[in-house]
């Protein structure tokens, strides 16, 4: 019987059906960070449980870590307390931790693939909803709450109900200036923020096939914004080329044997799905959000066509029928687990080179990891950004969620390459977020207002050193 990757991976990790009727699912990789784990470790200690598979657990600090001064103790005392708690917990239970000073530190969803910890066919859990990112490599990965973090620490298992699978085909070619971010914003616009509840999204079609692994991560990352707890792309030669040689990838001959298994766990050609949706890549243009959830987006030249949502219009200050194009911005943020990887920075820098950030805009680039930061510096991208007037920061989640001191103030409007435009998301209760691709953020930073990136791309030299298979293969500290 032909099966999807989801079904094969689910079955391979099923321990048994619990008395409740839920599935006991083995978790092949558990990623933890400083914000959703301290209470889980406390619960573990209260019950006298140990960590069953510390070697299958990896930790880093990303959510609250400062992106400015990183000397310890941090100037932000709560960041110090939360980082210290994670350091103590990892030491006590023998868990590998990439703390603030470590060369491998970064956003948990950036470093997993970067280090080759994330691999096809795994089940992956993390106390963060954007864990769906790891599906870009053909893993089944989902976000969990803190009580479930406790369960995975204690048992390496979760009690779950299986998901249905919706196949989303994106066929055709993306035009220059149109990116993976525009694809996923368009999918969410079409299917809604709760259209994916109960589903895993399997992305495919010629446009997805043509994407680098980093671009696929952008797509899978925002699956949860469409309500889908997991999203994935079947592993293929692009995936294998991305993984080969990475620190935790199987070495040498073992890699070739691994590839054989990875090919087997991909969806069978005749597999059936619970639902199918198709989009034409050629129909997608630069897309921006105007509202307070990620489905509230429009093409850059389109008027806002949404049905009456008085709350969103009132909060954002847009009127029905208005255009987002031309909206003055106060802040430009390039970073996050959605768009903080080396190819994102490369593309943004290509636009920025030789131009200046508008004097009315505060612009910052926050690399997704220290490895991304080092690679950007090796390529000289940091200097391009600094010369243009961007701040060049340390790695972390930063202004995606405003948990550290990087926050919007008052009603500021931010052009952001992140994933959520919820009310208050970027740290100011009245702050406003316009989601878009990192290239569009760079264009907005320079213009001082939301603009179509495509005219600015005309005449800009093509990307140098672009290597679709190995994009983002960056050096790591040992």
């Amino acid at each position: 019987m032909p099966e999807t990757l989801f079904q094969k991976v689910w079955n391979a990790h099923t321990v048994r059906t619990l008395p409740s009727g839920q599935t006991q699912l083995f978790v092949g990789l558990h990623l933890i960070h400083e914000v959703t784990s301290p209470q889980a470790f406390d619960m573990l200690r209260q019950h006298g449980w140990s960590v069953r598979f510390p070697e299958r657990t990896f930790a880093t600090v990303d959510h609250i870590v400062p992106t400015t001064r990183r000397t310890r103790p941090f100037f932000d005392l709560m960041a110090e307390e939360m980082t210290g708690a994670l350091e103590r917990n990892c030491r006590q239970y023998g868990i590998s931790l990439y703390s603030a000073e470590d060369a491998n530190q970064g956003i948990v969803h950036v470093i997993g693939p970067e280090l080759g910890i994330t691999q096809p066919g795994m089940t992956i859990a993390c106390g963060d909803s954007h864990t769906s990112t790891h599906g870009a490599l053909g893993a089944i990965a989902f976000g969990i709450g803190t009580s479930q973090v406790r369960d995975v620490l204690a048992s390496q298992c979760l009690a779950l109900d299986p998901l249905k699978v919706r196949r989303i085909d994106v066929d055709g070619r993306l035009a220059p200036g149109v990116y993976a971010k525009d694809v996923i914003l368009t999918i969410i616009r079409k299917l809604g923020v709760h259209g994916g509840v109960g589903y895993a999204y399997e992305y495919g079609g010629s446009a997805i096939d043509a994407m680098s692994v980093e671009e696929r991560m952008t797509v899978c990352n925002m699956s949860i914004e469409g309500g889908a707890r997991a999203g994935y792309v079947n592993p293929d030669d692009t995936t294998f080329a991305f993984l080969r040689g990475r620190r935790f990838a199987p070495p040498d001959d073992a890699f070739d044997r691994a590839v054989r298994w990875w090919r087997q766990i991909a969806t069978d050609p005749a597999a059936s799905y619970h639902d199918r949706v198709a989009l034409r890549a050629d129909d997608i243009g630069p897309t921006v959000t105007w509202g307070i959830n990620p489905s509230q987006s429009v093409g850059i030249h389109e008027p806002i066509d949404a049905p009456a949502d008085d709350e969103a219009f009132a909060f954002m200050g847009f009127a029905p029928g208005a255009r987002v194009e031309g909206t003055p911005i106060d802040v430009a943020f390039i970073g996050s687990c959605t768009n903080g990887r080396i190819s994102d920075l490369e593309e943004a820098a290509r636009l920025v080179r030789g131009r200046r950030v508008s004097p009315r805009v505060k612009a910052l680039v926050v690399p997704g990891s220290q490895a991304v930061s080092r690679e950007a510096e090796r390529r000289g991208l940091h200097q391009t950004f600094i010369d243009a007037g961007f701040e060049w920061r340390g790695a972390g989640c930063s202004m995606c969620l405003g948990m550290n001191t990087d926050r919007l103030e008052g009603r500021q409007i931010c052009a952001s390459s992140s994933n959520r435009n919820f009310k208050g998301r970027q740290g100011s209760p009245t702050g406003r977020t316009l989601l878009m691709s990192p290239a569009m953020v760079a264009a907005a930073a320079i213009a001082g207002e939301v603009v179509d990136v495509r005219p600015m791309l005309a005449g800009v030299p093509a990307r140098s050193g672009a290597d679709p298979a190995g994009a983002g293969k960056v050096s790591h500290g040992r």
Partner: protein
Amino acid sequence: MAADRSETGAGAVVRAAGTGLPLRGHDIDTDRIMPARFLRAVSFEGLEGHLFEDDRGADPAHPFNDPRYARATILVVNANFGCGSSREHAPQGLVRRGFTALIGESFSEIFAGNSAMLGMPCFVASASDVNRLQALIEASPETPIEARVDAGTAVAGALAIPIALPPAVRDAFLSGQWNPTAMLLDRYDEVRAVAARLPYIAGY
């Protein structure tokens, strides 16, 4: 303030009873329920004081500011409640404020799962029934409500509506096994056997 049921030990959850708090609106995300700056702590203590803090600040008439609902234990919401971030801080805040159940048109899966782990069922009802229940509570906040896991009904005054949970979640509440850690640790040799068969653990 009610203690987290998971701290007092699992037991069967058959019903939730009390008065209601109607919170209207679709797609209310966990950043709004519990803004990220209140995640700056290593414990869940005190989160109940920050529920909807920004929404409450922006709107004095917000239901969480309304003294008529101060003692409510059943939160009645609309579609896709709890979407966005997986932060358990959101349901932790609700449990600590004294809520024992939610009734809504639909919930984000992660939010409903996190709530179930705390012994707080998220019942699904039709949009029209949710609206009738919200209207009834708004008209008479003191109306006692009983939501039954076993019967799959909620009764508020003269109003009786069907409410549902996913079958496995319903069974877990009724059998007292909604906090699954002990079950997951039971028969652990089976877990080790599954791990040993996985190529990425056994070795390629």
